[in-house]
């Protein structure tokens, strides 16, 4: 069993005249937290969308657990063990939190259409099992209070957590988190940091995330990839990348600013 869970080779994607991602290569080890950083428009979410198969790369390929990902249809990605959250929350607005999480268990459904129509014993057992699994996620993220509330009525911070919960319900091997702390206050961000660490250590899930909050990045990441204008700038530990001159130039600010950032981290 290889140590490398996901590998991207020479990924490029072109939208019309714009080269959004240009010859990006990286590998994500099993069990690590790997973060993509970079200014807006660097292509980070585009890389996510390539992994989720929303876009198809113009050149290059992605392998997951040794298998090629680039030919798979988008709905097959979850079945392979990849779950993601979206930058602009894509929850099911007219359903309750519980129903959102139950939908997350869809890939694990083994009951057929006709058994469901008759709601046989096996379907009943499957429903109970699904519910038990979802309750574990609810406990993990402390969403008990919101279980039956319609998503449409929830505040932003809670929705972000529900989005994470839904991704966790799929029991993924790789979790893609798109800007998990955007829009969250200090307390919520530190909760998020703890959860990411728990996800990594207790649940054994590999995390690939896009993030702008450098303190969060330094706190939880094992390795960081800095991107700018679709290209790779630097790859290494958080400290190494934050000290890299090119990264500081493109994203973190001048040399003096870098010093103050290191103090925060």
């Amino acid at each position, binding site marked *: 069993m290889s140590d490398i869970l996901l590998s991207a080779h020479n990924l490029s994607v072109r939208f019309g005249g714009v080269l959004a991602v240009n010859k990006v290569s990286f590998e994500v080890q099993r069990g690590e937290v790997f973060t993509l950083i970079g200014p807006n428009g660097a292509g980070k*979410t585009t890389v996510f*969308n390539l992994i989720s198969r*929303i876009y198809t790369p113009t050149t290059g390929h992605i392998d997951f657990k040794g298998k090629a990902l680039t030919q798979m249809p988008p709905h097959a990605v979850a079945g392979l063990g990849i779950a993601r959250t*979206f*930058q*602009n929350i*894509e929850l099911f607005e007219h359903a309750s939190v519980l129903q959102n999480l139950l939908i997350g268990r869809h890939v694990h459904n083994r009951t057929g259409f006709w058994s469901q129509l008759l709601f046989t014993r096996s379907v009943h057992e499957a429903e109970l099992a699904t519910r038990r699994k979802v309750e574990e996620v609810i406990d993990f993220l402390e969403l008990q209070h919101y279980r039956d509330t319609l998503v449409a009525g929830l505040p932003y911070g809670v929705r972000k957590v529900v989005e994470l919960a839904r991704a966790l319900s799929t029991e993924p091997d790789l979790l893609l988190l798109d800007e998990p702390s955007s829009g969250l206050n200090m307390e919520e961000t530190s909760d998020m940091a703890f959860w990411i660490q728990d996800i990594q250590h207790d649940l054994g899930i590999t995390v690939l995330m896009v993030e702008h909050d450098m303190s969060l990045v330094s706190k939880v990441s094992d390795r960081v990839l800095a991107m700018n204008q679709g290209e790779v700038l630097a790859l290494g530990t958080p400290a190494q990348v934050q000290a890299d001159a090119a990264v500081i130039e493109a994203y973190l600010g001048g040399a003096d600013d870098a010093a103050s950032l290191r103090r925060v981290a």
Partner: protein
Amino acid sequence: MQELQVIFSGIAQGCIYGLIALGFVLIYKATETVSFAQGELMMLGAFCGLACVSWLGLPYWLSIPAAMMAMAVLGWLTERVVIRPVLGQPAFSIVMLTIGIGYVARGLITMIPDIGTETLAFPVPYKDTVFNVGGVVLGATQVVVVLATAALSALLYLVFRYSRAGIAMQAASQNQLAAYYMGIPVKRLNGMVWALAAAVAAVAGLLLAPITFVHANMGFIGLKAFPAAVVGGFGSLPGAIVGGVIIGVVEALAGFWLPEGFKDVAAYIVVLLMLVLKPNGLFGEKLRKKV
């Protein structure tokens, strides 16, 4: 020779479809609402014109602007009273609302004693004129349809493309809140658009009236205008007219060449083909959600 005749009547009929489609594309472009009431507004426009000419005794050339004005006011009122309160609801609900408006219009007209259930002739000064162009007989009623449609669509295209109001309408249709923040008087614009669409429908009604006579079920022709809008591409004003003409011609030729029954469904078969081959229509825009 007969083909040309058939094609020309197809073009004229298609222009009517195009004008009705123009009405919905206008409303769609400005508010992203699909209005199924355009057919009935056309019917009301025709009745308005009839009222002006036959009962108020106005000369024909005065009745046209009068009917258009009356319908514009009606369109504005409809938007103000019925559509404005429901904006923000899912698109489907608004579609059902406009279907309801259509039912109300049709019901009210049918209820008018002595007139509602009749088919009435519309006296038009050019009714009996025909042109003979190289063996093809062109009724003046049809020629007027084509010319009026061309003029109207050119005018509207320019308004939308180059005027501030046109651009403002497009902005409001994509993101109402952002439009408000930019100082666009969204509500006022919406009222204007419905008034404009109703006036366009009135023109369609006045042009169609001499050909099919005025009756309460005229509005059902409006259903054929949807295929026209789809073929042209829902966000495109010239597309609506082009789509309409294509549908009209295909329909006319189908009636001429193919066995009975194909004429009625020709428009719908074209729509399905279009959705398979080029879902955004000939001139439509392809928008895609960015996550």
